[in-house]
């Protein structure tokens, strides 16, 4: 085709194009900060309306672009990265309608707009983003179809919306097997080619710090944070402590993870007899610390085990990840404590919590050097006089004093924090361990679900000969709040006045979600290599994978061709056999022409190949009778039909000899 100026769009195509662009940008806008998202959305709509009649002037467009880029950069604090890139993409897509007037513009807009759902998935993989992204993709295809329709000039008989969507659905259905084959078999990258940028919008959850009273929101958040499946032994509810960040440093208000211990090797541990082998599926946190059952034995590949048995990955956990771990309850955990560590575990800020210090010193005088008895006395006191509540006042300067002597009610943050301060005041090395406790067993799928509301903090004290010992003062007060594996804490049980009808639905929903995680989100190079393990193939190396992918792609392509050409195939088996017989004569140069009647053809064959003539003449007579002489014979006998088909199929013209 000679190159000509791209034709101007008609109103309907243009509407489709703009709606598709909007649908593509929508999920991305939802991921931006509300202010920026709203700004870009308003700009986009305004620009599309202004430019409806004629494209905006170049200078206006340039000005708009500069203003929007400036706004985005300011909002993003001039940082470059994934978020800024996504915001800029959204801004560009908002400006593009200013010049969308020709077919070419519309197509490039659609092409670029498809990057928006793609960008959204880099930021968020929640169900809403997935659904919106899918809708956007469907709309994009429908619009491409509309544009092709426009291009081919079919203005009179346009497709209905329903016809268009069903056409698209058909294309997707036909393309789906290839897409799935590619998804499971296309070789994945074990390590990224370029870095994964950090997500700057952080999610609430466990972090490297803890302020007593700061978790109140977290404790009511039912969002799943990890799912666990045990292979073999399952720990008792009282043993289900999921170890996360260990906090050593206390500044009077906030507990933090120290920096100094990063390079130190894991502490010496003697394990008890129990062994728990489990697979953990961690929702993205953007941190680098894994959560593991107390205490993890050995780190998985590329994961570092810190001195206080925290597991640190090489990269931020920005996506769903799965880990196979082994844990055991410790018998003796770091029985020799180096003096530096001992010092760190005794450190308290000067001038805070005088009453706690006085009490600890009084107990120390009474009990002498018996650390274990001191711990026990503290636990007994807590058990006797304290209450569990999520409703706590804001702490003042001496937060521990206020809690221990005034309110005497709080939740795990207060209990663990105060307990550790009390122990340290008495000269017992102690630290706060954060993580999760308990879990909910989903009977559908037989796995354990740990939610954000299971977040927990407990204490570890160091005793001579035994090393670090877990002490949970919260459990001494409200064990049911800690080991909430019981059905009464099942999801949805508190809703609707304790109706447990919701629970099975929740179970099913979470199980489906886990399946999606399992099959789609968590699928990586490692699992791909183990894909054929059930069939006895241990590991798929890249070469095998490529070969497998090639075979599967070829097969699905054939299947696609078959599916799309189904309408083409002759439905009548007699006709099919007849055509096939005609084609067999091609070799002899006597193939039946499409327009040639049966009789003419067999006559023609008889003229040049007298040896084949009679057999073919008889056969074509039979065929013609069967097909056209129904009026005379009056019926179509099934047996007759079968025999005719068989005869036609068996008929093969030999090069020289007799035709059968």
């Amino acid at each position, binding site marked *: 085709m000679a190159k000509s100026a791209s034709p101007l769009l008609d109103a309907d195509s243009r509407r489709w194009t703009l709606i598709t662009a909007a649908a593509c940008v929508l999920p991305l806008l939802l991921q931006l900060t509300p202010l920026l998202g709203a700004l870009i959305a308003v700009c986009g709509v305004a620009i599309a309306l202004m430019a409806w009649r004629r494209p905006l002037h170049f200078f206006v467009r340039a000005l708009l672009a500069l203003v929007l880029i400036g706004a985005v950069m300011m909002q993003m604090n001039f940082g470059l990265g994934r978020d800024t890139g996504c915001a800029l993409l959204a801004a560009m897509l908002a400006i593009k309608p200013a010049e969308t007037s020709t077919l070419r513009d519309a197509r490039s807009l659609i*092409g670029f707009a498809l990057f928006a759902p793609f960008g959204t998935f880099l930021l968020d*993989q929640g169900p809403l983003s997935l659904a919106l992204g899918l809708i956007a*993709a469907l709309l994009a295809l429908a619009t491409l179809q509309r544009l092709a329709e426009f291009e*081919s000039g079919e203005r009179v008989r346009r497709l209905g919306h329903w016809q268009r969507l069903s056409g698209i659905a058909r*294309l997707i259905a036909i393309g789906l097997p290839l897409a*799935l084959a590619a998804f499971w078999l296309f070789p994945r990258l074990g390590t990224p*080619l370029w870095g994964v940028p950090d997500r700057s919008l952080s999610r609430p959850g466990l972090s490297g710090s803890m302020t007593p009273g700061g978790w109140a929101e977290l404790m009511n958040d039912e969002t799943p944070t990890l799912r666990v499946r045990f292979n073999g032994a399952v720990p008792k509810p009282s043993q289900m402590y999921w170890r996360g960040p260990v906090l050593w440093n206390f500044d009077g208000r906030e507990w933090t993870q120290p920096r100094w211990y990063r390079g130190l090797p894991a502490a010496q541990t003697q394990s008890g007899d129990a062994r728990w082998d489990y697979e953990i599926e961690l929702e993205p946190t953007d941190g680098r610390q894994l959560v593991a059952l107390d205490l993890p034995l050995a780190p998985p590949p590329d994961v570092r085990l810190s001195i206080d048995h925290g597991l640190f990955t090489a990269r931020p956990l920005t996506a769903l990840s799965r880990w196979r771990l082994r844990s055991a309850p410790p018998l003796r955990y770091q029985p020799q404590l180096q003096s530096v560590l001992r010092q760190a575990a005794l450190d308290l800020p000067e001038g805070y919590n005088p009453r706690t210090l006085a009490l600890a010193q009084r107990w120390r005088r009474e009990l002498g050097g018996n650390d274990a008895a001191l711990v026990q006395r503290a636990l007994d006191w807590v058990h006797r006089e304290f209450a569990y509540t999520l409703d706590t006042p804001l702490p003042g300067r001496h937060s521990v004093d206020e809690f221990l002597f005034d309110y005497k009610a709080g939740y795990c943050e207060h209990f663990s924090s105060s307990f550790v301060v009390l122990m340290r005041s008495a000269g017992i090395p102690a630290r706060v361990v954060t993580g999760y406790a308990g879990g909910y067993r989903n009977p559908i799928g037989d796995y354990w679900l740990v939610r954000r509301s299971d977040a927990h903090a407990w204490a570890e004290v160091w005793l001579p000969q035994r090393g670090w010992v877990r002490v949970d003062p919260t459990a001494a007060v409200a064990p049911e709040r800690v080991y909430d594996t019981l059905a009464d804490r099942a999801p949805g049980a508190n809703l609707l006045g304790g109706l447990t009808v919701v629970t099975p639905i929740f179970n099913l929903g979470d199980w489906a979600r886990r399946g999606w995680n399992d099959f789609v989100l968590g699928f990586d190079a490692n699992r791909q290599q183990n894909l054929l393990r059930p069939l006895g193939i241990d590991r798929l190396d890249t070469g095998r994978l490529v070969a497998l992918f090639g075979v599967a792609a070829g097969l699905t392509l054939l299947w696609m061709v078959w599916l799309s050409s189904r309408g083409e195939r002759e439905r009548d088996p007699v006709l099919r056999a007849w055509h096939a017989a005609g084609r067999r004569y091609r070799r002899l140069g006597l193939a039946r022409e*499409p327009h040639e009647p049966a009789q003419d053809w067999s006559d023609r064959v008889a003229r040049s190949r007298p040896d084949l003539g009679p057999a073919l003449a008889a056969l074509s007579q039979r065929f013609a009778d069967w097909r056209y002489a129904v009026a005379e014979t009056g019926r179509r006998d099934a047996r007759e039909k079968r025999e005719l088909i068989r005869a036609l199929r068996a008929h093969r013209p030999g090069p020289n000899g007799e035709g059968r």
Partner: protein
Amino acid sequence: MADRPRPGLRARLRKFARPRDPEPLPALFHRGRVYVLPTGFGLFFATALMSMLLGALNYNNNPALLLALLLSGAGLASLIAAQMQLTGLSVVAIDAEPVAAGQPLRVRVHAKAPPERARRGLRVDDDGDSDAAAPLDLDGGSGEAELSFATRQRGWFELPRLRVWTTRPLGLARAWSYVWPDAPLLVYPAPEPHGPPLPAGSGDQVQSRLHPSGDDVHHLRGYRAGDARRAIAWKPSARRDALLVREYEQPLGADVVLDWRAMPALGYEARIARLARWIDEAERDGRRYRLMLPGQPELGPSSGSPHRHACLRALALLPHG
């Protein structure tokens, strides 16, 4: 036309494409002669999808990967669907009303296809040589497209290789198939624009059997296109507000003899042009005429459309001097 030398890859591709010679009709578009190549937009779309795939693989972002794969799968399916738009279609016949050289020749391409599948947005053009493409609407299994070709000289018209194509369903790929019909299409000689009037009826002047009363009208009838002006009865027409024509038992007038040898002063093509003009004039006047060409049996005397076509055909097919 179609075998005009063209540089570059396109030309070479075209040379390999089937059919390579004119072929008898009907021509069935089987799989082997339907070609599919991505359009410019298809390439852009593929590039966009490739970068999405690469990004998704890098971040091991499975939803993004699935999205890109889904779009790729639908794109590939659209390539197959584009091919399927054409396979099974057959070009059944080609025809055109003969026109004088210089007039556009309107060629109608008749096609049919099994009605099971809707075939939308098909177009026919002359292998991309001109911008003009005619829609081929296959409603209910058969349809036709009308292409217009410029004609330069009398004689058989060499139809270029035609291309039936579509970019449906998504505009990502163009599927096309060539058909090069070996169909005889005739171009008549261009008539002389200005020239002398018809020669007077000569030779044996067979006067038509007139009515005994001489000029008396046998009866009047309504005007039909092509009636001679002198046959119009002006006075009765004026009375009736409609053109009326006197009809005699036999047309009046002597047969016109159009003789090649009678105009020696003219050049070869000029004689043909003048004869073509005279044939049209004689037809317009409703007179019988004979055409005498060297080395050919004489045509006529007769008149009417078949005679006219026979005469013009004979003129068109005179060897080029």
